């Protein structure tokens, strides 16, 4: 059998490594991308929530009669209207083995409220306006209780208790490390101490959350549409909370308008609309306001950290000690409890430090919950160690570049197990450092800064060298710390009769462009045109299993599983093609979608047709080209990089300008360089946002101080520097694609680089420490104080 169609030279199908334009773009540019709130169902009702106005109180009574009488109102519900079997507590995905369980968190508060914004009652009406109107007629009678907001204060004796059963509001105290800090520190030539605050910030994706539940009584099935990073975890946790088995729940995430970790867990509102839809047998939509988003959707970071380093005369760091107070918020959300711990595992950073002594306190306060936010633990770790190393350089007088070089883990030490229990897969920090220094012209800038200082200007140069972990695996290690999500990812590939390819993959993109990058991988493996590959995700009825998009795992886990499934397809297609061409498989050549043996050729489509027809197959071969591959990463990947910022401070106002910004990131092999760069841009923008502008805070009564973009300063176009980006490539040895992950690197390297640059500028004027965000008022006050 010889094909005519395939006899011409086929175009290259090597898409991996190319900046292929995104297939997602057309729909978003034209306003035809479907986001959750764009879905409208017949008979749909609207939910509006009555939320706690107090940070801590017992609920005496909730009067709903007046609200029920309002125009358009269909129902008003409180916790009392649902049993545990209909609206149970919200499960988490990460409970550390040492934790005394988690506090019950009901979707609608029972008996008490623990933070401002906690749902207390829900009004269901024919229109959103009517639902909103009627919430003002629900009357809640509270008895106030003492409030605790400050994380460190909450962890000390005598603080008001958020939950009576947790002494000192402490959910856990987790110890990490190895060796004897006390002994090393006592004998060390230098010891530095710093107290750092890594403030609460908020992902604040531009699309807030939306949940639309549709219970069908005829089939007993519930469909939930929402913007999430993981439909399968939502399905599982929703099943637990409302008692509908997983095989009768369908979770769909259409386009997601940004997530950054904030859309990873099951939220109270998701359960509420589901339970209400089941009760009323009508679709129910809840759409979050921006104020609700700031007060109810989980934020990230919020650690107070005491760090000490001990070093010898040459600046070799001998030991690290850290005490962290991590704010969990009023409850334990999703992965919230685990983040401070994995942060602790990254405290040594890129340095070969033998001794570590780390205590992490997970603490409850009367604030909204904390969760994964871009970087989830690694930004805190990179900030801590990079601030501390600069402090050590300042104290010892050793040049900060030289000091870092003396302490780097060397390329021949990988895989490297650090003193806090994390293993890094690969790295070459000198290479990235040299490249970054060259890109920014470090020595020339230092000289320019000296000259500028002599003219009274306040300028500074700062860097960070970071490594992190991505790809969430291995599963064994994570199970030991109570991680209750899978670490594997699966892909199913189906080749249709006409040779088009369907990939079902268990991740859920929120702007990363995975439909394009996964298609690049599969098209390359199969040797077909990329336009012939369709990537499906985000619907549990289409993709039955998956682990979701987080921890920059989508290429390393899902990309790998897609490649492995494609390789299974190719193995079968090769066997079939050899059979059809009547040659031995080893004599068959496959390139760019064409199978050939000498002058005889078959196209991919022709092989697909025969596989589908199933008439002329080798012995024992089943019809169709359809394969599944599940990839469980054997270890974490370790992206790394170097970020450098040059800043100037206006002495009159304290305002900071970032004049130059260089980011050199190593995320292993690049599937799509343009998209990878886009991830770095976005991550750096959020990191600079945390360094200079953003803070989600509460006053001492627990009232939120940022409830809109009028108070919470996400950076605007004119508030960010021009980014100069570069890459080094150190392939990961732990997956066949050699990719490491790129989604969070920008948010990890940027905060310490910017703050170190500012500290470089102000330290020589006597300022000893600054905490983020570096607002003009703070910088001005500290400079003034130091000048006294």
């Amino acid at each position, binding site marked *: 059998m010889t094909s005519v169609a395939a006899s011409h030279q086929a175009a290259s199908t090597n898409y991996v490594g190319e900046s292929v334009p995104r297939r997602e773009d057309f729909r978003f540019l034209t306003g035809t991308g479907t986001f959750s709130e764009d879905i409208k169902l017949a008979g749909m009702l609207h939910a509006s929530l009555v939320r706690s106005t107090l940070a801590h109180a017992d609920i005496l009574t909730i009067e709903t009669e007046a609200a029920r009488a309002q125009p358009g109102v269909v129902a008003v519900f409180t916790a009392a209207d649902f049993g545990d079997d209909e609206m149970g507590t919200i499960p988490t995905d990460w409970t550390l083995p040492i934790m005394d369980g988690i506090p019950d968190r009901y979707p609608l508060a029972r008996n008490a409220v623990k933070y401002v914004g906690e749902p207390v009652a829900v009004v269901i009406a024919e229109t959103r306006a009517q639902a909103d109107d009627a919430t003002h007629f629900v009357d809640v009678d509270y008895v106030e209780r003492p409030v605790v907001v400050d994380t460190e204060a909450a962890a000390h004796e005598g603080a008001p208790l958020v939950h009576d059963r947790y002494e000192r509001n402490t959910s856990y105290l987790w110890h990490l490390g190895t060796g004897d800090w006390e002994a090393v520190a006592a004998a060390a030539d230098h010891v530095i101490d710093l107290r750092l605050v890594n403030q609460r910030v908020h992902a604040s994706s531009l699309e807030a959350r939306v949940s639309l539940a549709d219970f069908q009584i005829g089939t007993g099935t519930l469909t939930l549409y929402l913007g999430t990073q993981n439909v399968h975890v939502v399905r599982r946790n929703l099943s637990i909370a409302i008692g509908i088995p997983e095989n009768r729940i369908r979770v769909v995430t259409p386009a997601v308008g940004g997530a950054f970790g904030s859309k990873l867990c099951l939220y109270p509102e998701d359960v509420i609309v589901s339970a209400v839809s089941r009760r009323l047998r009508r679709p129910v939509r809840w759409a979050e306001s921006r104020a609700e988003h700031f007060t109810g959707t989980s934020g990230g970071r919020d650690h107070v950290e005491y760090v000490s380093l001990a070093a010898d005369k040459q600046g070799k760091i001998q030991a690290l000690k850290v005490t962290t107070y991590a704010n969990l918020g009023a409850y334990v959300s999703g992965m919230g409890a685990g983040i401070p711990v994995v942060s602790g595992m990254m405290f040594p950073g890129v340095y070969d430090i033998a001794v570590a002594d780390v205590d992490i306190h997970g603490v409850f306060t009367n604030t909204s919950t904390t969760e994964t936010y871009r970087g989830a633990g690694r930004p805190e770790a990179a900030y801590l160690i990079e601030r501390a190393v600069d402090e050590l350089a300042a104290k010892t007088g050793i040049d900060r570049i030289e000091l870092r070089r003396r302490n780097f883990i060397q390329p021949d030490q990988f895989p490297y197990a650090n003193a806090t229990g994390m293993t890094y897969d690969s790295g070459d920090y000198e290479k990235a450092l040299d490249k970054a220094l060259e890109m920014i012209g470090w020595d020339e800038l230092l000289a320019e800064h000296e000259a500028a200082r002599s003219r009274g200007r306040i300028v500074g140069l700062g860097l960070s060298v970071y490594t992190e972990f991505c790809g969430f695996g291995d599963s064994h290690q994570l199970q030991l710390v109570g991680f209750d999500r899978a670490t594997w990812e699966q892909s199913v590939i189906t080749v249709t009769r006409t040779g088009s390819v369907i990939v079902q993959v268990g991740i859920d993109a929120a702007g990363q462009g995975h439909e394009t990058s996964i298609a690049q991988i599969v098209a390359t493996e199969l040797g077909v045109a990329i336009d012939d590959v369709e990537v499906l995700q985000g619907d549990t009825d289409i993709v039955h299993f998956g682990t979701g998009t987080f921890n920059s795992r989508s290429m390393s886990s899902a990309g790998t599983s897609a490649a492995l499934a494609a390789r299974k397809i190719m193995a079968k297609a090769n066997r079939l093609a050899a059979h059809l061409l009547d040659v031995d498989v080893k004599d068959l050549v496959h390139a760019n979608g064409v199978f050939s043996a000498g002058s005889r050729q078959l196209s991919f489509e022709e092989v697909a047709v025969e596989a589908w027809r199933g008439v002329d197959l080798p012995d024992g071969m089943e019809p169709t080209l359809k394969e599944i591959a599940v990839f469980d990463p054997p270890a974490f990947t370790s992206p790394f990089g170097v970020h450098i910022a040059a800043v100037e401070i206006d002495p009159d106002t304290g305002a900071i300008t970032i004049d130059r910004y260089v980011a050199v990131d190593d995320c292993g092999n690049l599937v799509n360089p343009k998209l990878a760069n*886009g991830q770095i841009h976005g991550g750096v923008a959020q990191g600079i946002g945390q360094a200079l502008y953003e803070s989600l805070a509460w006053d001492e009564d627990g009232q939120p101080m940022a409830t809109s973009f009028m108070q919470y300063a996400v950076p605007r176009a*004119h508030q960010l520097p021009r980014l100069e980006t570069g890459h080094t490539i150190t392939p990961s040895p732990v997956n066949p694609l050699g990719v490491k992950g790129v989604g969070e690197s920008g948010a990890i390297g940027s905060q310490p680089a910017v703050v170190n640059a500012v500290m470089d500028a102000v330290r020589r004027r006597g300022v000893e420490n600054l905490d983020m965000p570096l607002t003009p008022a703070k910088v001005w006050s500290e400079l003034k104080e130091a000048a006294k």
Partner: protein
Amino acid sequence: MAHDAMTTERPAGSHRVAISYTLNGEPVSCETDPRTLLVHHLREERNLTGTHIGCDTSQCGACAVHLDGRAVKSCTVLAVQVDGCEVTTIEGVRGQEADGLHPVQEALRRKHGLQCGFCTPGIVMTALELLDSDEPLTTEEVQHGLVGNICRCTGYQNIVDALVELSASESGSTDD
């Protein structure tokens, strides 16, 4: 007009007002509640969901549309106010290319000036007005022109580069 009948009594339930206007070139006549924001009217009553809601406080620009040729925030306009006006939404933006993309949209695509795409329709509507100038725009001018649009994904650099480059190549002349 029924001004004489106007009293201080709070209107009970729905209180509809008739409006007629031009939406993406087509005449529309309908009734709406005075408190209905233009963005809600477009999304819920006209089923044009390309205009998005990002912030509620007139900060983010995801809801940008053109009203009588000027870019405005449709979350800060009442639907009743567009009576007699011309409204253009992202669904009304067309290019001459076969794929239907306007040069502004094409430039954003070329430069990877969008990720999640939620802010993108608002960026396009704002950019169409911004680029309606005879002079090429500087980076600073484009950044300043986007001060009313929040993008949480891209860090703006690729958006700004796309618009600066387009402005230089066309000296800002756009097709509409």
